[in-house]
């Protein structure tokens, strides 16, 4: 993996690639666990980021409503 900082978009792209690879059954069993592990990492990252974003948005919105 590149050392670039993971962003939601890059994670999502990578995840999509893995999904595509797995769906097209291009992946061998040797690689499968590695890929699934990576996918799980990416999923976790994306979900956390998404969750964080949602919370941030809700907080901002609630601040807005208080006004």
């Amino acid at each position, binding site marked *: 993996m590149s050392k670039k900082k993971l962003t939601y978009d890059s994670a999502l792209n990578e995840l999509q690639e893995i999904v595509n690879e*797995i769906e097209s059954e291009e992946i061998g069993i040797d690689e499968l666990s590695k890929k699934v592990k990576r996918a799980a990492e990416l*999923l976790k990252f994306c979900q956390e980021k998404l969750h964080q974003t949602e919370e941030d*948005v809700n907080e901002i919105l609630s601040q807005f409503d208080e006004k």
Partner: protein
Amino acid sequence: MQKSPEYTLSNLMDELNLIIRSSFDQSYWIVAELANVSTSPRGHMYMELVEKSGPQIIAKARANLWSSKRQQIVSAFEDITHQTLKTGMKVMLQVTIDFHSVYGMSLQIHDIDPAYSLGELERQRQETIKKLEEEGLLDFNKQYILDHVIQNLAIISSKTAAGYQDFMNQLENNTQGYTFKTRLYPAIMQGEKAVGSIIKALDALENSKEDYSAIVIIRGGGSNLDLACFDDYQLNVRLAQAYFPILSGIGHERDQSVTDMIAHTRLKTPTAAAEFIIQHNQAFELQITELFGTIIEFVKMTIDEQQYIMEQSSNSIAEKSRMLISKEHNLLKEFSFYINKSAVELINSNNLQLRETKADLAYKSKSHKNRSNFQLQQIMQELSSSIENFKRFKILEINNLQNQLLSSPLILNKQKNKLSYIQNTIKLSNPESILKKGFSITRKNGLAITNISKLLNNDILETQLYQGMIKSKIIKE
């Protein structure tokens, strides 16, 4: 020569009065411009009537409007034209000529035609509009784009004017709770001094270096009279080119003034002007609220969408991975089954072969044994017959030898003869006997020479004779 007076001044004036009265004994409709209009405490109106050719005055006369007629004439005029009689106004009036011995000639005003003034005013107004249009000033102020939020306002009005109060009340008591920063630039809003006063206020406003969202022009309200200043060319030239957009709240019933036309936005009343500003701001608030709503909606939608993608990805990966693994499992199971099956088959087939081989071997070894036995018997037979033969042959041979032995003395004789012959032969072959006969042996270094090719020049040769030796040397010829 001394002259005698023909008239006294009063006689002459009386005469003149008589002639004027008889010659101009009716009333006349004339057109003139008013100048120096004034009203006496007793209600009489005094003025001058002038006619100009360009800037040049080419005729001038005093005129009076007596209080007895003034009320009726002036109110009819004001009702129709919404104008007061004032200096600079061009009017059509009905006059009679009056002559007074002390005050001289003057014109008595009997009627003023409002229709003419109205037409004249309209003509002037149209002229002003046309000029402004030609100069590109009619829509000049409209090019400003109003601030999204109008908050800092310059107001040109009169502090005591009802319209100004209306405007401020409406603005400050808005239900939205908007706050405004306003500054009044006071000006006279009607009458002859209005134009100069408004222009002065505008100068002050623009010199203040304040950044206003708009200039609101608010007239006093009340009377519909004396709106002519807002048709003034100079004022509108100046207003049109103001640094800020102009909102007009002049407030009158009749057709819009020229100021309304050049204004960025024309409002019918001061209250309407305030309402416009509030609504303008409200529209902006609504717009940003809507935009914010759109953003929120978009954000929520995006999050939902992403969550869906996550779920899909996660499901897809899980499902597919399990599928892949189970597929491989099945494949392995299949392999294992085939391996089992093949192994069993292989073993079975080997067993069978083995059995066959065993059977074959048993059969083959048996037949081989039989055959060997047979061969052995044969060989034994052959052997015994050979032994028999050999025995017989040997017996025969022994018999022969016995026979030969019996005849051996004869053989001895024969051998004796043979030996003596050999003895003779040997005797003859001895070199001594050969040398005796005169033959010689030539040697080089002790070896007998049988061939000349072995000889070289100066070789020493020894020649052996039966008796004695000759030494010789080869000399090449």
